[in-house]
């Protein structure tokens, strides 16, 4: 009896620390934030002292052109970053998927940018983009080309480039892994049928990789909404609001404008957006599992 009881309790004992910590430091704060988003709350008040204002923060944001612009910047940033990184990463994976000596050394080099702190990435690029002392403009100047106002007129492009530098390797490595676990038989068969390299890529490799690619893309997309430090260090959101992504605007609203309630409401909007993406990812996963089974069956038939 006692052992049965103990056995039933075991999983809860294993789970308990994780549940306690996540409840205390993730779930409770999220609830607290939702509660706070209905208040006119500044950092020197406790939440109890803040006045309840209902949906006012949400409505203000809904009509706030700065919030719209920031949302637009976020979406543009996420879209460009993810699509360009996908194309480059997958392209490189296809190109480098062959036996070359030292591929592991290469991969090591490629993951370096991802491991370095975003703050440091930001300052490296801020230096390289510097209008006069920066590497790029010096190089352009050196070969007699006109210089570019990187973090001024082309700020959004510049931060997108920096993000591509940092995160393309992520997609590259995942696609390479996917490529190398493709069923040999299908490729073998295609080669025997005389398919060119291009035909193999388009008709066999890409479709087979697709499930992994879509998950990877969605993961990157979710991460793209989290980017903050790199941009903070490079441009602080400027010029204008041209690089002020939502995460940065939330942090500025909270610390610089001292409006915790509005920042909380903004966080909620962002959370809803990400929730939709995550749900899309789940839905896709489900769908893919059923489809994978079908594809598997097809491949086996082919053999």
């Amino acid at each position: 009896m006692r052992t049965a009881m103990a056995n039933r309790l075991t999983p809860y004992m294993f789970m308990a620390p994780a549940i306690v910590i996540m409840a205390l430091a993730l779930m409770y704060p999220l609830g607290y934030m939702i509660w706070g988003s209905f208040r006119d709350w500044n950092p020197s008040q406790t939440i109890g002292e803040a006045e309840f204002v209902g949906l006012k923060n949400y409505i203000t944001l809904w009509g706030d052109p700065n919030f719209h612009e920031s949302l637009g910047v976020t979406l543009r940033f996420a879209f460009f970053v993810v699509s360009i990184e996908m194309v480059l990463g997958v392209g490189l994976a296809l190109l480098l998927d062959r036996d070359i000596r030292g591929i592991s050394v290469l991969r090591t080099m490629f993951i370096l940018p991802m491991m370095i702190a975003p703050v440091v990435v930001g300052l490296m690029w801020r230096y390289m983009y510097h209008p006069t002392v920066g590497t790029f403009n010096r190089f352009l100047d050196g070969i007699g080309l006109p210089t570019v106002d990187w973090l001024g007129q082309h700020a959004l492009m510049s931060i997108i480039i920096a993000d591509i530098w940092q995160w393309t390797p992520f997609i590259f490595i995942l696609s390479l892994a996917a490529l190398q676990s493709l069923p040999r038989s299908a490729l073998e068969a295609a080669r025997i049928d005389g398919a060119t390299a291009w035909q193999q890529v388009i008709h066999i490799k890409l479709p087979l990789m697709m499930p992994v690619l879509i998950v990877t893309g969605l993961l990157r997309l979710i991460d793209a909404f989290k980017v903050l430090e790199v941009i903070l260090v490079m441009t602080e959101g400027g010029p204008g609001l041209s690089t002020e992504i939502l995460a940065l605007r939330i942090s500025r609203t909270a610390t610089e404008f001292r409006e915790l309630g509005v920042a909380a409401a903004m966080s909620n909007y962002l959370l809803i957006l990400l929730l939709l993406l995550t749900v899309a990812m789940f839905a896709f996963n489900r769908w893919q599992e059923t489809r994978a089974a079908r594809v598997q069956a097809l491949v086996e038939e082919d053999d």
Partner: protein
Amino acid sequence: MASPNTKANPAFYAVIALLVFMSVGPVILMFMNSFKLDVDIISGSSGLIFLPTIQNYEKALCDVLWYEPDHVDFCSLKFGGAFINSLIIALISTVLTLVIGCMAAYALVRFRFMGRDTVSLSTLMVRMVPPAVLLVPVFGLWNNEFCLDRDGLIGGAIRDTFGGRGDVCLAGTHSGIILIYVAMNLPFVIWILQSFIVQVPRSLEEAARVDGAGPFQVFFKVVLPLIKPGLAAAAIFTFRIAWNEYLLASALSDRDTRTMPILIVNNMSEFNVEWGVIMATGMLLAIPPIIFTLFASRQIITGMTAGAVKG
């Protein structure tokens, strides 16, 4: 996977060389600039020929040097202290996350229990929460709610022992930052480790159980040693986030608990764009991740693939 039609051709190697140059170039640039004087960096007396100096590092680490460098008028940066803070916070939160995450992942994989699906699903969902979203509530809670009254029993004891002013709150302590890092990293670690634990053959565990081992013994003696690669990967990712994170740390830390990223951002203050020192501090922050990359790239890649592919 060598296909016969891919003869090594020069263009191919040129592409590879270019890629390597692009990914490593900025880091090397930062490394070199960290050994230059500001005047050399700004005047652009070109790249490779310069007299290396460690002044920038001396300035950054002035609070832990045993001598006072002549060129430092007063020690403003205190980077040494921040290095130690970062180390404490990153190490402790990595260890805690791993232990707690491992146990949870094991329970999720091996046991059927009430609430399992809920837990599993919410673990996945919170993975998407950006740190910026946590900023407001964590700031409020850590400063105002998660406090002990300074007149109370424990609060009073802490104030008597460690000094300080006001109520004893989580904000401004190492523990406060560690708590949020552990919470933030748990979902990811649980996710990754689940995929490793699934692969541990049940028969091994059964065998141990027949030998009379309790569930905790089975877990620590049998399961843990078998998922070492997974643990390594998870450890590196957790450490990386705890070591690199800026936003939440800057909201939660005080004078004595600031971590390195905070100091770097602070030092980019508008009145002082001292590129040399900034690059030196950047290098110091980048060193541990670079070391990991060089020595554990295999684990990193395993972790990345497992984390992404195993939904």
